[in-house]
């Protein structure tokens, strides 16, 4: 990545942040939630590039959110950085264990089995009275390095953190995809045996991707928990995971920015659909999904690519 594009990205990042802060409150809230979800989907896209679709990212999304919620509520830790660190490390440890089992599976079995794990978490949380069962519990306002912005400033703080995370993690993910291990993902999807003959460990490649995806999902969950101020087991329910796959497909796997944009679009579509048609918003979502699958099989990003391909391309 050249210095110039880095500088441009930096400007873009600051612009997004300022724009986010200037937007009306409800829009910046929607934007923050969308970025949280976008991060989860980013992890999902990493897996999808290796041919694996997880219907259970809700597991780590929910774990991250609950770790954040429990820290603020029961341990009175409100520092955003500490919370992020804790939820990511916890989810990564869990992913490292579950991954040992899960990464042996492919295709539909990987999808179903990952869903089973998230449903087990859902069941555990529903049984847990201390954590409020299905009602969940509220999350206290976050602070940063001793600075507590209070209820009004809290959502701006989370927004700023989310923008920062999206940009840094986005760049990291982009670099990762350009690395050997990143390209190995596509090799796994195309042909596992050939890859192993070439000396790559398919298990290791998938395992690493699974753990990265879990970490990203945990961050997404933490952002959502902090900005919405509430967590409940619904976050681990299979429909939540299904939504992530929906967004991933909507954006396409072509670029790291695709999931973020798709998440913003998805959230806007959903809120407008339920405002315009409170009785039939699901149907609108259904038709939108069908339209994307039919006309944009590689996701919305293929539009951008089509647009780009018209111009002569420089070597990267």
């Amino acid at each position, binding site marked *: 990545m050249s210095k110039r594009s880095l500088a441009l990205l930096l400007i873009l990042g600051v612009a997004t942040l300022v724009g986010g802060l200037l937007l009306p409150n409800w829009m910046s809230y929607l934007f923050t939630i969308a970025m949280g979800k976008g991060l989860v989907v980013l992890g999902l896209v990493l897996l999808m590039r290796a041919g694996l679709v997880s219907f259970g990212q809700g597991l780590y999304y929910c774990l991250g959110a609950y770790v954040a919620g429990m820290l603020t509520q029961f341990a009175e830790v409100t520092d955003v950085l500490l919370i992020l660190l804790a939820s990511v490390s916890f989810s990564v440890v869990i992913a490292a264990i579950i991954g040992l089992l899960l990464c042996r599976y492919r295709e539909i079995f990987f999808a179903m089995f990952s869903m089973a794990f998230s449903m087990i978490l859902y069941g555990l949380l529903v049984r847990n009275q201390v954590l409020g*069962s*299905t*009602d969940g519990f509220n999350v206290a306002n976050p602070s940063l390095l001793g600075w507590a912005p209070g209820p009004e400033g809290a959502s701006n703080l989370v927004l700023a953190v989310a923008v920062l995370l999206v940009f840094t993690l986005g760049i990291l993910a982009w670099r990762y995809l350009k690395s050997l291990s990143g390209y190995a993902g596509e090799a796994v999807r195309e042909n596992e045996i050939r890859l192993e003959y070439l000396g790559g460990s398919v298990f290791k490649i998938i395992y690493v991707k699974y753990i990265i995806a879990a970490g990203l999902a945990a961050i997404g969950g933490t952002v959502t928990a902090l900005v919405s101020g509430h967590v409940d087991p*619904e976050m681990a329910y299979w429909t939540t995971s299904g939504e992530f796959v929906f967004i991933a497909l909507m954006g396409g796997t072509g670029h790291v920015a695709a999931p973020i944009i798709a998440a913003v679009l998805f959230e806007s579509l959903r*809120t407008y659909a339920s405002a315009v048609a409170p009785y039939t*918003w699901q149907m609108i979502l259904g038709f939108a999904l069908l339209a994307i699958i039919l006309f944009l099989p590689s996701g919305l990003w293929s539009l951008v690519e089509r647009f780009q391909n018209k111009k002569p391309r420089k070597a990267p």
Partner: protein
Amino acid sequence: MKHSLLTAATVACAMTTGGLSLNAYAADEYKLGLVTFLSGAASGPFGIPAKNAADLVIDAINDGTLPAPIKGNGIDGRMITPVYLDEAGGATKQTAEFRNLVERDGVDAVVGYISSGDCLAIPSVAEELKTLTVLFDCGTPRVFEEADYKYVFRTTATASMDNIAAARYVHENLSDLQTIAGINQNYSWGHDSWRDFTETLKVLRGGDIEITTEQFPKLFAGQYGAEISALQVNSADVIHTSFWGGDTDAFVLQAAARGLLADNEVIFTAGETALNSLGEHLPDGAIIGARGPFGPFAPESELNTWFQNEFTERFGTPPTFPAYHMAQALIGLKLAHDQAGVGASTDEVISSFEGLEFYGPGGKVEMSRGKGHQAATEMVYGRLTRVDGEITFTDITRYPADCVNPPDGTETLKWIQSGMPGAECN
């Protein structure tokens, strides 16, 4: 990379700004956000009756046709314009939609929320946005036990009241009660209901009560064959259930077909919604509650007669407790505004709402808990019986509000376990 990201940002910005709302604010309208279930399993038994009640009561408030002593058109002269929203989708979605209602649609107040999870998540947002919010149906006592709110009110009593009263009722009405069994849905509502019921009974009987089996089938499971067998094998003197909506219907049908309801005493804490549809399957003697003095248990009043007649005429079925809850919330909101006077600020409306006592179609509502933000009402149970084929109730016991609601500032479970001090039951 840079091109694509720039495009990305442009797309995102265009999208977010492009869809901006048109906030036409008219001074002579009172925009009211109404959130109930319009889809999903809770919509039939709860969401739609509540919405119907809202339509009916809002029209009556706007036309000024509510029976005396409620007077005046609209809310201090402003016509209510409802903005409906589907409650389905979980608490995270609802907090986002709440912001949209307030900041995009510019509503003056919000009345809504059936799910307890939503009722726990919404108040902190309502406080942040300084928006008057009336929770109308959800039951969890945690809302005002865990925090104090300024902008949030709940005009319906907590579910603890249902189960404390249920325990009192079976304790007083069933001679030689020794054993109990429970079948409740496996989520907060079911767990809390069963816990309050058993804890109260333990206190009332000095610990002399035995639980034969406690079943927690999944919410909306629909198939209760194995649970019914378990209840038959581990038979008890009374079976407690807090099932609601479709689950009550399924349980009643399956349990009736297998004779469980005829052979056992069963108490349905929220069974009233099943009366209209499945009354013929409920045997004589079934103990029914309506989450307050509603439906068949509503005390006689001009307002109740009006509500029953108009509702039945307009929608074809008599109003059930969710409809009463909604009517109660809307009337409470209007009266708080009326008392504060025309042109009152939100703070003034809040201070007149706090501790308000008013009469809804279900009788007296005292905003006497949660520092004046949480309602307490009486609770009623009765046994179903038939007179010339018509369903009516006998052995009706009315428990005053102070008998079955913990005093202000106490936590329900602690209050029960410490022997319910200060309960006034006569």
